[in-house]
Structures are given as C-alpha cells and as structure tokens.
C-alpha cells in the first residue's frame, strides 16, 4: 500500500549563506504508513522538530521532497494551506496558542479557517471536545480558566477538529505529571482506534512511545538511526542510550539480567512483560 506521507531525501539548512548556517536535517528519507500509530523519537537537536514542520508545509525543504498521498506538497505552493488541513500538527506546549473567549470558539478556529458550513463546524467541535475527554459544559468556559492539563486537551481538540488524515503531536505530554501524561496518551490511543487514521507521536520519552505506538523511528543528528517495532528497537537498548535517549528502567533491568546470563528476551518495555517472563522462568528451571 502506498504510504500516506513519504519523506524523500529531505535536507533543511537554516540561515543558509550566513556564518550561522547549519543543517538540522540531512538527506533524511522515511515513510509514514496509512493508519499506523507511529512514534518518532530523538533527543533535542536530532532534527525531529524540523522534520515535522516539513510534513505540513510550515517549512520548505532546502532539498528533497515531501509527498502526501503520492503528491509533492510543494507542487503547487498556493495549495499549501490545504496540506495543513490534511496533516494536523499539534505543537509543543499547545496551550500557549489558545486565544478565544470560549473553548467552543477556540476549537472552531481550525474548521472555520477550512470554510466549512456552520453545522459541520458545530458537529466537529462537539465531537473533538468529547474525544479529548472534556464535558459539554466546558464549551462555554474561557480556556484560560481551565487547569493546565485541560488547556492542553482543548488545544489538541483544536487540531483534531480539522479531522486531518494524519495527526502529528510534538511532545504532547511535556511538563505534565504522570497522571496528566497517561490521560493524554490514552485519549490518543482511543482516537487512533476509533478513527483508524494515522497518528504520529513525537517524543524523547522511550517509555510513552513504547506503550502507545506500533512502529518507532529513531532520529539522531538529522538522520534516521533506527526503525522497527518497539520490540525490535528495544532489543538495541544499549545503542539507544549511546545516542542520548532514556531507556525505561524496566528495559535496563531486563538487559542487566540478560547480561548476567538469565535466559530472557531483554527487548521488553513494560513491567508486566518482564514479570511474566521471570515467573515463567521460575516455574521452569532456574538459570543463573
């Protein structure tokens, strides 16, 4: 099947021709498959922010192409706004973009820009506010009167309301406490299952990526470093640590046990999975 987005030899150079010239992305190629929940992971400076701003045409490639449904998005620069409706991008700390008097109006901003009829806007606003787990009585409240976690959900609803084919979120859990993180991640998983549309989660936390996504792309220094299912990527935990990423503690324990000669598969990333392996091992014969 044709990928929904194809990144083809993308290079982006900031401040070209000045002494500050630097390439944030260098000859990067990757694919985003239709309907998948993809995780993109990399530390600060790995090029992940630059990459995602290319996917909806906020940045223009210095070299290379971005194809959406097989079409180069820059084939007709006049249509770039259409691309932004098809590829929804939620920035880091999105609550800082809220500006309207009510939650309803703020969420309606995107659909309104699309020029949709009033009834359709109304339907989408209500549906997406519900999708992020907020009640209908929130609609008439000022977004600034909400708690931090609620504000973030309103901002995410604002992008969901455009009903994009691809939803990309840059560090949607940054700065939230564990409960807030889990709330956001579970609403994203539910959104993906319900709509079956493509979701891309960008993060520097291996833990949350592993628990939510079906496939992971690891970026490092402006290029793709690894690619595969969570299990495939976590099997190379030592390599991940070498590129400055934090591996979940449970993966570290599994690797430590594996190195001590315990016969387990170290590519785990949940406590339950490791627990199951170890208890099975104990039921059989101890190897150590």
């Amino acid at each position: 099947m044709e990928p929904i987005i194809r990144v083809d030899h993308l290079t982006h150079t900031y401040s070209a021709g000045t002494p500050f010239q630097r390439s944030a992305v260098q000859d990067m190629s990757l694919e985003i498959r239709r309907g998948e929940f993809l995780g993109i992971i990399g530390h600060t400076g790995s090029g992940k922010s630059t990459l995602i701003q290319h996917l909806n045409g906020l940045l223009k490639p210095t070299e290379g192409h971005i194809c959406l449904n097989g079409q180069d998005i820059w084939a007709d620069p006049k249509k770039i706004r259409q691309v932004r409706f098809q590829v929804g991008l939620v920035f880091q700390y999105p609550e800082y973009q809220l500006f309207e008097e009510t939650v309803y109006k703020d969420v309606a901003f995107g659909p309104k820009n699309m020029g949709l009829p009033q009834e359709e806007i109304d339907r989408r606003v209500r549906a997406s506010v519900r999708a992020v787990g907020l009640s209908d009585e929130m609609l008439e409240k000022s977004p600034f009167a909400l708690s931090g976690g609620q504000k973030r959900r309103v901002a995410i609803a604002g992008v969901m309301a455009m009903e994009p084919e691809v939803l990309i979120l840059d560090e949607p859990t940054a700065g939230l406490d564990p409960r807030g993180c889990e709330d956001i991640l579970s609403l994203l998983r539910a959104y993906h299952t319900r709509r079956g549309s493509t979701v891309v989660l960008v993060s520097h936390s291996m833990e949350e990526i592993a628990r939510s996504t079906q496939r992971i792309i690891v970026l490092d220094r402006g290029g793709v470093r690894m690619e595969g299912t969570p299990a495939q990527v976590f099997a190379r935990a030592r390599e991940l640590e070498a590129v400055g990423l934090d591996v979940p503690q449970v993966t570290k324990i599994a690797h430590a046990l594996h190195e001590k000669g315990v016969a387990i598969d170290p590519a785990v990333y949940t406590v339950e999975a490791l627990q199951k392996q170890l208890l099975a091992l104990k039921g059989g014969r101890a190897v150590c």
Partner: protein
Amino acid sequence: MSTMLQTEHLTFAYPAEEGESAPTAALEDVTLSVEKGSFVVVLGHNGSGKSTLAKQMNAVLLPCGGMVYVDGMDTKQEALLLEIRRRVGMVFQNPDNQIVANVVEEDVAFAPENLGIPTEEIRRRVDDALAAVGMSEFTRHAPHLLSGGQKQRVAIAGVIAMAPECVVLDEATAMLDPSGRREVLSAIRALNRERGITVVLITHHMDEALNADRLIVMNDGRLAMDGTPAEVFTQVDALRAMGLAAPDTVELLYGLRQGGMDVPLDALTVEDCAAAICRALR
C-alpha cells in the same frame, strides 16, 4: 544535626478568585523539618500542594495558619525577609522566566548586587558559582542561546552566588529533556555533596527520588508519606491509591513477590534489582 527548614501545622489557602466563593485550600496541617545538609525530594501530583510548600520555604508565600522557620527564623517577620531569602535560594520551572540579564555573568551577579556585596567579592562569587555548575565557559554568553539544561544551570548559579545554605528547586526539571535533566541533577547532587548545601527537590519524576536521603509525598495538601526512598517506595499499594507509581524496579519486585518469588522489595536501583532477582532464581 541542626534543622534547616521547619513547618509546624502549616496551613495555607489561596485567596478566592473571581467566580469562586471560597478560598482554595492548598496546604493543610503540614508539619515537617529538613535537616541541614540533607537531600530531600518532595513528590506529588499537580495540585498536591508541593509547589505551595516550596514557596513557603523562603517567604514568597506566608502561612495562613501555623509556622514556618528558616534556620530558626520565623518567615512572618518582615525584618528578616532578605536574610531568609539569601539563605534559601529558589529555582523555578521555566528557565526563561527567571533569567534577568542578557549576559550570563551579569545574571549570576544579580543577587549579590542586590545584597550590596563589594565588586571584587561579586566577581569571585560569580566565577565560583559558574564553576560549581560547570558553566564557566559560558560566562560571556547570551542566555537565550543556551539549551534548557544550561539555562537552568545558570539559574542555579544565580542562586549559589548568594552563598545560600539551602536550595529549593520547584519542578526545575519539568520542562527539560532527559539530557537537560541529567545535567541539572548532577549539578545539584554535586552542590549537596561537595558544599553541604541542603537541597529540597520538588518533582513528579519518580526516578529523581532514588538517590535522595529522604522522600516526602504530598497528596491533597497534606503530608502523605515521609521516609527514606526505600521506606516510601515499598508501600506500593498506598502509592497506587494516590495515583502515583513506584519505580519500575519496585513495581517489578512487587509483582514477582505476588507471583510467589522470594525477592526483597527495597532494591531500588537497576543493579540491586537485577542482583536480587538473580539470587532468587538461583
């Protein structure tokens, strides 16, 4: 050992805002004391009162009921305000919103300048504070061009330049990426170990608590747990009831015990945990 910070039946409520009928209670009957030279971590959800507690520790907020003592000084005494704030330095969450000057050394010099310290002594303190957080090479840099972890280390240096006895970090790592967090934590640990500065680290990252001398858990404005990391984290059920999780190590050991394996609960680090499991499997 003597006491650095002490609260007695501390109660605090934020004044009612527009549209609210009653003031919002943030702290209720909190009694605790922090020993000089210790490394204390305060854990809790957003809204658990942990940041309010932090702001009580250098008189940014004053108690509604009960008392707060900093090094024996009552925070309600206005005449002692500057001395209290000099002794307890505070580092906040957003690095951008606490850097005052547009050259690193000027920013670090801000507090000593306010304290009226002679020029040569300011110079010495600035250089010393920047060295203590490993930022000496950035003395003449513009802060807005630094990374998050570097900015936060500059903010710590700005506090160290007051020669404080205690540093309170109010979710100072929440906005940082993993490498930034590591930078800040190792700088803070070094200050505690090498200079004997008391550290109160407020966070919602469990793993930052592993090396602490003491762990305090806040819940709904009350002190919920208080003890060594091993004592607190092994109370898995109580933590879960508050919606908090123990570190993976303890969660795993807990699960294994329930599955009938003979492992201890208090092996907090990855190495200890792996060793304990190995022993049990043998």
